[in-house]
C-alpha cells in the first residue's frame, strides 16, 4: 500500500515536472524542472530495486548533465533570444487535432494492452554486481562500442572548438 502511494506521488512529480519543463518560458526554470524530473525517475528506479541505476541516474543526469544544461543556457543569456513572429503559425492549428488523435491512439492502446508482470521487480537483479556482470558478459560488445561512441563525440567536440579558436 505504501509503495503504491509513493508511486503515485512520484509519478505525479515526474509528469508534472515534465509538463513544467515544456510549459515554462524561462529556460532556467525549465532546466530546473528537468533536474526534478530526472531525480523523480531515479526515485522510481529505486522503487523497482534498481539501486545502482538510480544512483547512476542521479550522478550522471541530475548531477552533471542537467547542471551543464543550465550552464549552457545561462551562457546563452536567456531572454535575449530572437522571437520574431512564428512563420509556421498555421501549423499550430494542425497540431491540435493531430495531438488529440495521438492521445486518442495511445489511450486505445493502453486500454487494449494486458500488462503482465512476468517477473516481479524485486527478483530482477538490479544491484551493482548483476549490472556489472551483464555489462561484461552479455552486453560486452555494446559496452565497448559505447566507449567508441564517446570517443567519436569527444573528437567531434574538439574539432568544433579547435577551429573556432584558430
Amino acid at each position, binding site marked *: 500500500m505504501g509503495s503504491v502511494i509513493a508511486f503515485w506521488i512520484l509519478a505525479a512529480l515526474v509528469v508534472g515536472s515534465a509538463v513544467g519543463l515544456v510549459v515554462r518560458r524561462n529556460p532556467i526554470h525549465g532546466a530546473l524542472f528537468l533536474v526534478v524530473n530526472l531525480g523523480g525517475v531515479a526515485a522510481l528506479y529505486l522503487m523497482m530495486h534498481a539501486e545502482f541505476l538510480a544512483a547512476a541516474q542521479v550522478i550522471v543526469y541530475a548531477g552533471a548533465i542537467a547542471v551543464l544544461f543550465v550552464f549552457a543556457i545561462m551562457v546563452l543569456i536567456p531572454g535575449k533570444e530572437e522571437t520574431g513572429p512564428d512563420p509556421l503559425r498555421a501549423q499550430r492549428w494542425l497540431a491540435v487535432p493531430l495531438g488529440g488523435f495521438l492521445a486518442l491512439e495511445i489511450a486505445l492502446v493502453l486500454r487494449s494492452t494486458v500488462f503482465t508482470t512476468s517477473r516481479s521487480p524485486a527478483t530482477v537483479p538490479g544491484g551493482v554486481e548483476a549490472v556489472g556482470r551483464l555489462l561484461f558478459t552479455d552486453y560486452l560488445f555494446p559496452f565497448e562500442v559505447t566507449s567508441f561512441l564517446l570517443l*567519436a563525440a569527444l573528437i567531434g567536440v574538439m574539432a568544433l572548438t579547435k577551429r573556432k579558436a584558430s
Partner: protein
Amino acid sequence: MLPLISFRAIAPGMALAATACLLLLLDLLPTRGRKDHLAVVGLAGVVLSMILSLGLWGSDERAFNGMVRLDGFALFFNLVIGFATGLVLLLSIDYLRRQGMESGEFYILVLFSAVGMTLMAGAGDLIVIFLGLEVMSLSLYVLAGWFEGRLEAGEASMKYFLLGAFASGFFLYGIALIFGATGSTNLDRIAVAVAGGAARDPLLIIGFGLLVAGFGFKISSVPFHMWTADVYQGAPTSVTALIATGSKAAAFAALLRVLLSALRTVQPDWAVLFWGLAVLSMTAGNVVALAQQNIKRMLAYSSIAHAGYILVGVVAGGALGGGGVLFYLLVYTFTTAGAFGVILLLERDGREAVAVSDLAGLATRHPVLALTFSVFLLSLVGIPPTAGFVGKFYLFGAAVRTGYVWLAVIGVVNSAIAAYYYLRLIVFMYMREPEGSPTVLVPSLPAGLALAVALWGVVQLGVLPAPFLDLAQAAVIPLLR
C-alpha cells in the same frame, strides 16, 4: 559466462576503427599543415576493410551473444560503405584545401562514421543498431557544419543535430517498447516472440512505429525528410555525398535486417505501411525537386525520391525485393557520389558553382566532365545502359512479381517526372550559352580518380549487372532463414 569474442566477426569494422585511431596519432606529427597523408592512410584502411570483407565472404556466424552477425548481408553492405567512404575521402582532399578548411579531424570523423555504418550493417541486436546509428550520426553532425562561419553550414549542422537527436529519441523509445513487448532486444528472439503471438501486442506495434520514425529520418523518407534539403545544401559537398550514400545505405541495411529477420512473419502488416511511405517519398521528392534552382537541393529532393524507390523493394521483400534493394544501394552509391563529385569540382567567381544556371555551356568548356555528369544524371533517371536502369528494373520487377503492380506503376510514373529535372541539367550543359563569368573546373587528381571509380561502377553495373545481382540476392538469403 563470457560471450564468444570473435574478432573475425567484427574484422572489417575493426580495420576502420583501428585506422581512425591511427589517424588520431598521425595527426599529431608536424607536417606544415598538409593533411593529405591522413586521407591516404584512411583510404588504405578502407581498402583493407573491403579486402577483409571479401576474404570473409561466405561466412555466416553470430558473435558476442548474438550482438553481431557476420553474414553475406553485412559483408555486402561493408563493401557499399567502403565504396562510399573511399570515394568521399578521395573527393575531400583537394576540396577541403580549396575551402581553407583542411584538418585531420575531418578524415578521422569520416572514418568514425564509417565504423558506425558497418556496425549498423552487421548488428544482430537493436542496441547495437542504435549505437552504430549514434556513432555514425554524431560524426556526421559535426561534419555537416564543417564550414565554420557560413550561415548555411550552421543551419545544416544545427538542423541535422536537433532533428537527428529527436529521431534518436523516438528510435530508443521504440526499442524500449519492443523490449517491453517481447522481452528482448535481440533480433532472433524478437522473431521468435513475434511468431509466438506478440505481433498483436499494441506495445510492439507502437514500438515498431517509433522505430520506423527513427529509420525514416535516416533514410530521409517522407514525412521525416524535412532536414534533407537544408543539410545537403549547407554541408560540405563531399559530406553531402557521404550522408546521401553511406548513411542511407547503413540505415536501409539495419531497417531491412529488422524487417526481414525479426518481423518476417508479419510482412503483410508492415508492407502496407511502407507502401504508403514509398509512394509519399517518391511523389513528394520528385515534385518538389522540379522547382529547385540549386543543384545540391535538387539532388537532396532526388535522394528523397530515391528513398521511395528503394522502399518499393522493401515492400516487395523476400530475396527478390531485398536483393533489389541491396543492388540499388550499390548503384546509388556510385551514382550519387559521382554526381556530387562533379559539382564539387566546379567553381564560379571563386565560390562553389551550385546553381543550375552555373552549368550553362559546360559541355563546350569541359566536355569530358560534362559527359561524366551526364552519365550520372542518366543513371539517376534510369536510362539504359546505365546502372540506374538495371537497379530500377529489378526493384519494380520485384514489386510486380510480388503483386504490388500499382506501386510499380506509381514508381514508373515518378521516374518519368524525375526525368524532367535531371535532363534539364543536361540541357543546360549542352544547349545553353553561359552568361557572365564562366564556370571553371578546378582540377584535382584524387577527385578525378574518385570520379573514374564511380563512372566505372555506373557503367559496369549497367552493362554487366548479373554477377552483382546474384551477389545481392545471395546476401539476403541468410536473413530469410
